[in-house]
Every structure is written in C-alpha cells, then in structure tokens.
C-alpha cells in the first residue's frame, strides 16, 4: 500500500507541474492576448478594460492558483470567443476523440497480434520479412500523409467512403462508422507497426523458455503453444508500449480530426490556438496532458497487477 501511495503522490506532483507549465507557456510567451482579441485598432483603454475583465492585470501565480482551484472543481473557465464553458466544450467533443482513438487502437492491435504471431512461426521466413518491410514502410508514413492517401484511394478514386465530415451515433451506427473508419485507419495503420515489432521481439524471447519446450515436448500443436503459452507472458511490454504511444495517438488525433473535419478535442484545441483563445487553450492542453498522465499511471498499475515482480524492480528506482 505504501508503494501505491507513493505512486499517487508522484502522479499529483506531475499533474501540478504539467498544469503550471501549460499556464506559463500560454501566459509568459510573447503575444498579447488582449491585442489578439480586439485587433490592432483597439484603443489603450479598451485593451486595459479587457485585460481587467480577463484578470490579466493580476500577478500570474495568483491567476494560476485561481485557475487551479476552479479547475479542481471542474470549472475550466469560459472561452472568451464563444462564451461557452471550456469544460462543457471538452465534454461535448471528448466522445468523438475517444471513439477515434479506441477504433484506431483496435485496428492496430487487430493487425499487430496476428502479424507478430505469424511472424514468429518462422523467424526470417517469407511472412516475417514481408511484415517487417510493410511495418518499416508504414513507420515512415506520417498520419497526415496516410490520411490524404486514404481519402484519395477510398473517397476520390473508389468513391466508397465519405472524405470528411462526421455523423453522430444518432444517425445510425453504420453512418457513424462510415465517417470514422478512414480517420481510425489513418492512425491505426501506423500504430500497429510499433506494437508488432515489440510483440514479435518479446515472443521470440519467450519461445526460448523451458516451459515452451515442455509444451512442445508434450506434443501440443504449434498454434496452441503460441496462443495459450507464449502470448500472455509476452504481452507485458506490449501493454506498456500501448500506454506510452497514447501520447503519439493524441497528437495524431489532432491532425486526423483536422483532416477529416471531426468535431473532437483536438480540433477544439486547434480552433483555440488559431483564435488566440487563451482560456480554451489552457483548459484543453491541461486536460489532454492530465489525461495522458493518468492513462500512463493506469498502465503502470495494470503492469504491476499483471506481473508482481515489477512492483519491486521498476518502481524502486
């Protein structure tokens, strides 16, 4: 329990620093928000008035702790563009982003696990080399490029799927999936490469263990050895990597939401940046970073539950 308490404390410290850093970036860096909002023609009185309205005339640390206090109670302030509460704006758009990332992850795992299993059946064989080169190719394809290629292939050339736009679940499951499949593929087709490489390498290590030899000696068919004996002990690194890659996935989601015009959190953030919407950017970046930290924390916990040795090795240092 002592160990868990320390992890939670560490989490709290990181969250505090992350929100503080976001605040500093958004506030210290050059570029006056009041001028950005009112434009170059505003009078000094107007500017001063707006700064007072936004609370920009108070010391920065005071403003930060004010913000943190309300943030902890779920109030991230109001966008000074639309007047919409930031927390509400995020909550409205979060389902789209989550659906995108979950679908991408399912696609990635759905390709990576079978590919890794087939690869290690004969390391260096035809399938192994083929999947390794395919992975290497996809690894060199940024998500924005893949998104464009998918639109070109499936929307422009084959005319199978819509190029952009989002249909909510209320318009029917199929309409929703149709609008999400290309965005999810743009992320998933890149993500699987990393997962496949990690799992393949771990499987190869596991297959050298004595209990695999025993399973084989008992005369179990190769696929049962792979699926029932080798897969589980080989998937620890995979889980960690899935957790670590969520950062990349979030960044990718920002781009993909923009390409396919999906109303997600990433697009909310971009809109905020383009509009110099200080409070919106502060809220969204903090939310995204906090979510990322939390997911990694949970992955670490899961890792420890799955493999008790970890508790004593990984977290001591």
């Amino acid at each position, binding site marked *: 329990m002592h160990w868990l308490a320390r992890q939670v404390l560490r989490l709290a410290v990181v969250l505090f620093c*992350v929100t503080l850093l976001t605040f500093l970036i958004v506030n210290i*860096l050059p570029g006056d928000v009041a001028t950005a909002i009112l434009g170059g023609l505003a009078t000094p009185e107007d500017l001063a008035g707006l700064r007072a309205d936004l609370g920009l005339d108070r010391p920065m640390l005071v403003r930060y702790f004010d913000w943190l206090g309300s943030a902890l109670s779920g109030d991230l302030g109001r966008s000074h563009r639309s007047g919409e509460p930031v927390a509400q704006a995020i909550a409205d758009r979060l389902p789209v982003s989550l659906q995108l990332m979950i679908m991408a992850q399912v696609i990635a795992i759905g390709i990576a696990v079978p590919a890794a299993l087939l690869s290690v059946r004969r390391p260096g064989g035809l399938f192994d080399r083929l999947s390794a080169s395919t992975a290497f190719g996809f690894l060199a394809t940024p998500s924005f*490029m893949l998104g464009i290629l998918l*639109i*070109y292939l499936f929307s422009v050339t084959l005319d199978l799927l819509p190029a952009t736009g989002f249909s909510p679940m209320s318009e029917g499951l199929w309409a929703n999936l149709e609008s999400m499949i290309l965005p999810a593929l743009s992320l998933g087709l890149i993500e699987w490469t990393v997962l496949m490489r990690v799992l393949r390498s771990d499987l190869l290590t596991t297959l050298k263990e004595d209990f695999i030899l025993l399973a084989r000696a008992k005369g179990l068919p190769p696929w049962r050895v792979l699926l029932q004996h080798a897969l589980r002990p080989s998937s620890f690194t995979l889980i960690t990597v899935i957790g670590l890659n969520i950062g*990349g996935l979030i960044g*990718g989601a920002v781009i993909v939401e*923009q390409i396919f015009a999906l109303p997600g959190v990433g697009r909310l*953030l971009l809109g905020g*940046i383009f509009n110099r919407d200080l409070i919106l950017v502060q809220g969204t970046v903090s939310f995204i970073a906090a979510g990322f930290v939390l997911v990694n924390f949970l992955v670490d916990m899961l890792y420890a539950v799955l493999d008790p040795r970890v508790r004593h090795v990984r977290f001591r240092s």
Partner: protein
Amino acid sequence: MSASAVRPATVAPVGRRLSWAIVLPLAWVALVAFLAVTADWLPLPDPAAQELILRRKPPSTTYLLGTDNLGRDMLSRIIYGGRTSLIVGICAPFFGFLIGGAIGMSAGYFRGKVDLLAVGFIDILLAFPTLVLALTFVAYLGQSLFNVTLALGILSIPAAARVSRANTMAWANRDFVLAARTIGASNWRILTREILPNVLPAMFAFWLVAVSVIIVAEGALSFLGLGIPAPQPSWGGMIADGREALDVAPHTALIPAAVMFLTVLSLNFLGDMVRNLVDPRRSSL
C-alpha cells in the same frame, strides 16, 4: 590513456552491410541535401512565383513535377521545401541534444539530487503529448523558421537526456574513469574527456533517428498551418495545399507526400544501420 580507445568489442563489419538497402537511402538523402544546399544556383523558377493560368498542371517537360494550386513550380517548391525540412530536421535535434545531453550526462554522472531533479524535469516534459506541446509553443512564440526549430528542439530534450543519461551511467563506473579520478582529474575533465567520447556514438545514432522524427513533426505543424509561414515552401504545407485538389490534380498532394515518405524512409534505414553498429544488442528489435 585516451578514453576514446575504449569501444564496444562487437562492432559488426561494415563491408558486409553495404547492400542496396544502404546505398539507395544514402543516395536519396545525399540528393535531397545536395539540391537543398545548391538550390539558389540551380536554374529553378522562383518557388513563390505564381502563374495562375498554369495552375494544377500535371508534370510536363517545362514543369517536371507540374504546378500547384497557384501555378507555382512544384519541383522548385519541393527542393526549397527540402531545404526547410533539412534545416529544421538537423538543427532542432542538435539544439535538443546539446541541452538534453548536458542534462542527461550530469544526471548520470553526479546521480543523487541532480539525477532526481533531471528525471523530474524530463518526466514533466514527457507528460505532454509531443505534438500538442509543439503546437502550443509555436502558437505562442509566433510562426517562423527559427521558432519552429526552437519548439521542436525543446521537444527533443527529454529523449536526448534519457539516452545520454543511460549511456553515461553505463560508462561512469568503468575503470578508466576511476583511473582518471585517481590521478586527480576534475569532474569537468572526466565528463568531457573520458565519458563524452564514449557517449557520442549512441547519441549520434539517436540523432539520426531524431532527424526523421523532427522532419515528420515539422511536416505535421506546417500541414496544420502552424509551421513555417505561408509563402516559404514546406513539404507538410504542400501536402495540405494539395488536399484541396485531390480530385482534379492529385499530383499536388501525392508528389510532396512521396518525396517526404522516401526521405523519412531513407533516414530510418540509415538510423537503423548506425544504431546496429553502435549498439548490436538492439539489432534484433
């Protein structure tokens, strides 16, 4: 005794690896770099010169790679865009590695409180999804080549610090470091003369990988319209422009995409090769 004499014992022979898988990527990167450096002296049209009547022309003998939405020469824009990618791709990780390397080496060498502070700092930078942090930095610093490079450089600090810290820790307890300390060498001297030469190969291999990551990141920023400002060509920006004409002039998006893909692929090939040479243990991955 010079520390640089200490090298990993198992360096794979280079000659065996000089296959097409190395020659082709090397040739492509060399071509892109050569064109980017000599662009000003080549007989190229101005990459910003618009010829609206001749917009979205497919590749022809006059326009080898065709023209874009505003009738600008694609070849010229690709070459100048390559210059942008290479400047950012080379300088940003260099900056990150200078600072990250110093942090990581101090952390790995002094350990204790310095280490704790450095690891905490790295943890916090890593807590942000990279692209989101880059977007925020550039948005508030303002868009320019320098600011994009600076923002992406800051983002490569944590990775550089981790690599140099791990490598420094591996070397700091070796006998030649102890020997240097015994004859009264200062910490600064030990770090720069004994440890640094041994950490550099790993850092170099990692830097190569970072170059391709940063080129992609710059592409993503420009694609989103938050990278290099408009008239200056950038591959990411070109792909974004080409998206609007995918149905009538797909070459405007596909050509820069192909060029960027080949460049990143080549750099990944070279990075993998160098990393295998430097650290044979990782070659199985």
